[in-house]
C-alpha cells in the first residue's frame, strides 16, 4: 500500500520489458543475475555503450563482455513532469570506464538530482522481461 504512494515521488517508474536480441542476450542474462556487463574492445582497449559485437570506436570485432561495478557520475538529466505514473528522471551516467549510459534515476526525489552526482547501478524488475539497469545516488 505505502509503496504505491511512495514510488512516484521517488521516481521509480514502471519500465517496460526491453527488446532482447541475439546480440544483447548475454547482457540481459547477466542482468537477471544482478550483474552489470559492458562491452570492451581488446583492440583499442576502450569500453563502449550500448553493447555491440563490432567496436563502434575502432571497428574491431574483438569485443568482450566485462563485468562493471556500474558506478559513475550524472552527465545530465531531465525530470519529466507530464507522466501518468508520476515524474521520472531520464539522464546519462558517465561510467568510470568512460562511456555514457542512458538511464532512469530512481529512489531519489525530483529535486534531489545534480549534474556531477555519483550514482550506482541497480536493477529494476520489468513486466515479462529481464530487469533493467537504473541508477541511484550513492
Amino acid at each position: 500500500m505505502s509503496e504505491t504512494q511512495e514510488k512516484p515521488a521517488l521516481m521509480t517508474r514502471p519500465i517496460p520489458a526491453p527488446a532482447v536480441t541475439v546480440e544483447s542476450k548475454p547482457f540481459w542474462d547477466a542482468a537477471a543475475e544482478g550483474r552489470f556487463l559492458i562491452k570492451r574492445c581488446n583492440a583499442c582497449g576502450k569500453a563502449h555503450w550500448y553493447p555491440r559485437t563490432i567496436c563502434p570506436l575502432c571497428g574491431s570485432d574483438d569485443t568482450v563482455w566485462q563485468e562493471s561495478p556500474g558506478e559513475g557520475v550524472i552527465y545530465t538529466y531531465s525530470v519529466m513532469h507530464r507522466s501518468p505514473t508520476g515524474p521520472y528522471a531520464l539522464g546519462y551516467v558517465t561510467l568510470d570506464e568512460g562511456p555514457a549510459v542512458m538511464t532512469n534515476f530512481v529512489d531519489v526525489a525530483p529535486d534531489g538530482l545534480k549534474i556531477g552526482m555519483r550514482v550506482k547501478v541497480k536493477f529494476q524488475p520489468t513486466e515479462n522481461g529481464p530487469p533493467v539497469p537504473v541508477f541511484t545516488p550513492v
Partner: protein
Amino acid sequence: MSIKGKAYIMGAFEHPTRDAPDKTTAQLHAECAKGALEDAGLTKDDVDGYFCAGDAPGFGALSMLDYMGLKNVRHLDSTETGGSSYIVHVGHAAQAIAAGKCNVALITLAGRPRQTGNRPASRAGGGGGAPQGLSDGPPEAGFENIYGGTTHNTYGMCAMRHMYEYGTTSEQLAWIKVAASHHAQWNEHAYLKNVVTVEEVVNSRMISDPLHLLDCCVVTDGGGALIVTSPEIARSLKRPKVKVIGAGEAPKGPLGGQHLDLTHSGAVWSGPRAFEEAGVKPADIKYASIYDSFTITVLMQLEDLGFCEKGQGGKFVADGNLISGVGKLPFNTDGGGLCNNHPTNRGGITKVIEAVRQLRGEAHPKVQVQNCDLAIAHGTGGSLGVRHGSGTVILEREA
C-alpha cells in the same frame, strides 16, 4: 563539385491548415505539391525529381509518386534525417540538378499528428519505415527506449547540461519564444498568435525541466513543399529567383557513449560546410530560419552556426535580438515552430519556405527584413539529446 549557383528554389508552399481531421496524409502531400508547383508556374508533368522522407505514407516515394501522378520522375531521394530531412533535400536536389539527374525537383512534407496521437507517421507503424516483421527494430531500442525518452526530456537534458556548462538561464531561453511570438502575431495562419513575455514563459507549467510549456513548439497538422530547378528553368519562370549557394549536412550521435556531448549539435559541421561552399560568413546573413522544436534547439544552433561564441547564446538572444526590426539577427519571422507551424513534428520545410519568402520580399510587411538578399535555413532532426541529423542551406536572392 560545388552546388553553388547550380540550382534555384522557384516554388514554395506552406499548407494553411493546422488541424486536418478531414484529410489524409497523402492528400496533404499532394495539396502541398500542387501549391508549390502553382507558385513556381509549373505543372506536375514538369517534375522529374522527387524527394520525401519518413512522413510520406505507405511505400514512401513510390506510393506518393503514384498518388500524385508524377509520371516523368527519373530521380528519387528519400534521405531521412528527421525534421531536417527537407533542408538536406534542398542540397541533394541541387546536387542532382548539377549532375544532370533532374531539372525540376519536388520536395514534400505532410502529416497529421493532431489526428493520430501526436506521433510521426513513421513511428506509428504506417509510415515510411521498414515493413514490420522484417526488422529487429532500432539497435539501440533495448538499451534506450525503455527509459521513457521523449522529444521533451531528451531536449531537456541538453538544456540542463548547457545551463550547467555555460550558465544559460531560463529567462534567456524564454527570449527565443518571445521573439517568435512577436513575429507570429502578424501571421494569419499561425497556431499561436498571442505575444508572450519572458515572465509568461518561465512561469508556464514545467514539462521536463528545465523546459516549460512555452519553451516547446506547437503540434500541428499540415505540410509544405518546395520546387528546386535548374538555372535554365529558373530563368524561364516569372518568380523571383532564390539561388542555392551552399549546403551542408552532418549526423551526430553518442558513438559508443565515448563521445556524448549534449551542448553541441551537428551544426558545428553542417554550418561551416555550407558557409564555405557559399563563400559567406555568419555576419553576412540578413535573415535566419533556425529549427525551433524547443527554445534550446535555437540557442545551441545559433552558437554552433557561428552567430556567437559557444556558451554566449543566452546573451545573444536576450533583449529581443531575434526580433525583426529590433534585433541583430531576425529569425523565424513566420512565428516558427514555436508559434506558427511544426507540421507532423518535422518542421524543416517551413524553415526553407520562410527564408524563400524573405528573399523574395514576400514576408509579412511587419516582419520583412529590409534588403534581404542572403538567408540561412538550418534544421536538426531526430533528437539533440540522443542522435540527430543536421542540415544547413544558404540561399541568395538573385536580382
